[in-house]
């Protein structure tokens, strides 16, 4: 990797880290949305699991 490309990589990683810190610090709205997103995913996973159980029951019959 060329030297200037490494510099760009370092700057971009630092910018991403800065963005992450900015996002997670004192951002109640974001935390709420992330929690809602996680809950939605968990509900979807539980629904899928229920469907799979139904299929298994069907196969068993």
């Amino acid at each position, binding site marked *: 990797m060329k030297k*200037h490309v490494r510099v760009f990589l370092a700057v971009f990683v630092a910018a991403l880290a800065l963005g992450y810190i900015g*996002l997670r610090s004192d951002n109640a709205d974001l935390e709420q949305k992330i929690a809602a997103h996680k809950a939605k995913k968990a509900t979807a996973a539980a629904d899928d699991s229920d469907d799979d159980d139904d299929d298994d029951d069907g196969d068993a019959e």
Partner: protein
Amino acid sequence: MVSAILTGLLMGIAFGAVLYKVGAVRYSRIMGMLTLTDTKVMKFAFMSIATGCILYGLAGVFGVANQWGVVPRVMPYLGPAHIVGGVLFGAAMGSTGLCPGTCVARTGGRGGDTKFTGLASIVGLVLGIVVYNASKNWMVDAGIIAGQQKPVTLYGLLGLPYEAVALAFGGVILAITFTVDRVTPEKAYKAEHERKSVVDWVRGEWSWAFSGFAAGVLIVLATAQDGYLGFSGAALATVGVGADLVGAPLSSVPVINESIAWRAALLVGVLPGGFLAAKLSLKSEAAVTSGPVVKTMNPKAVGRFFVAGFGMSLGAMIGGGCTTGAFLAAWPTLSIGSFVMAGTFFVVSMAVSNLRMRSLKIFDIDQLQLVGDRVYD
């Protein structure tokens, strides 16, 4: 109006120069990207997208996005139009290695060894716009273009804030870019003399990292000017201004306002941008050794570039954007429509370029690069 024209023109000059300096106007580089034998332009595009994501994301995180006018404009989801337009656009790109922006920058830079191909592609581009304008209502009625256009986004689907998804997406694209850099080849064209000073570095071909960063910054700057860096929309605006000047306004561009003037100036600026970049650039060693390029007339090539110009502008107009407007500038907005459009045209252009070169028995990237080195193509 004057300031809109001037800023649009300056943006066009700068972006045209970047396209020329990174080599995105070179047939050998684009065919290299589409055949994965020279991924410089691919890395340039990814770097530009990562830059856009991070800049928009940081502006949002630190609460200055509205104040600085850098809230991304989302390209709407157009349904099957992305597939129809993407196929048309991809076929044109795969056969010539051009998109609307690079065809204008290439014409300005006067690269290649055939006469009138650049002009032919621009004439085709204009014709594509005229045909789109005439058939737009029919395409809406036929269901090809969605009548109700909705902005569907990745962050909307995930139910998360734009900034969080943009930064994460930027990080993923950045990781892909540096992985591609590690595992795929990039052709190096040797300059006429070793580059030592800063001036030499500026005059030589620019790296994908610097060019991608510059393109990303320009895309965000365009948003800050209440504009959008996309060349199919700019081509529509340019043809619209031309049609208005001759007293036959297009139905798609009924009024010439500041936004239309900015977009038209953006495309016009690419021409001097490519020209100036070419004039101020170092030549390659091969170009100096072989002497001045004698351009020849090749009617088949002229016809191919004309048809490709037509196909790419019609395809971009139907599908909602070109390589710049539906990829470089649109992916940072996390628009689902742009993911579908760019995904379609890249798959099609890769298939078309590989099939075309193999069926014509011209699949020889080394030879393409030898010629490209000599004539900047």
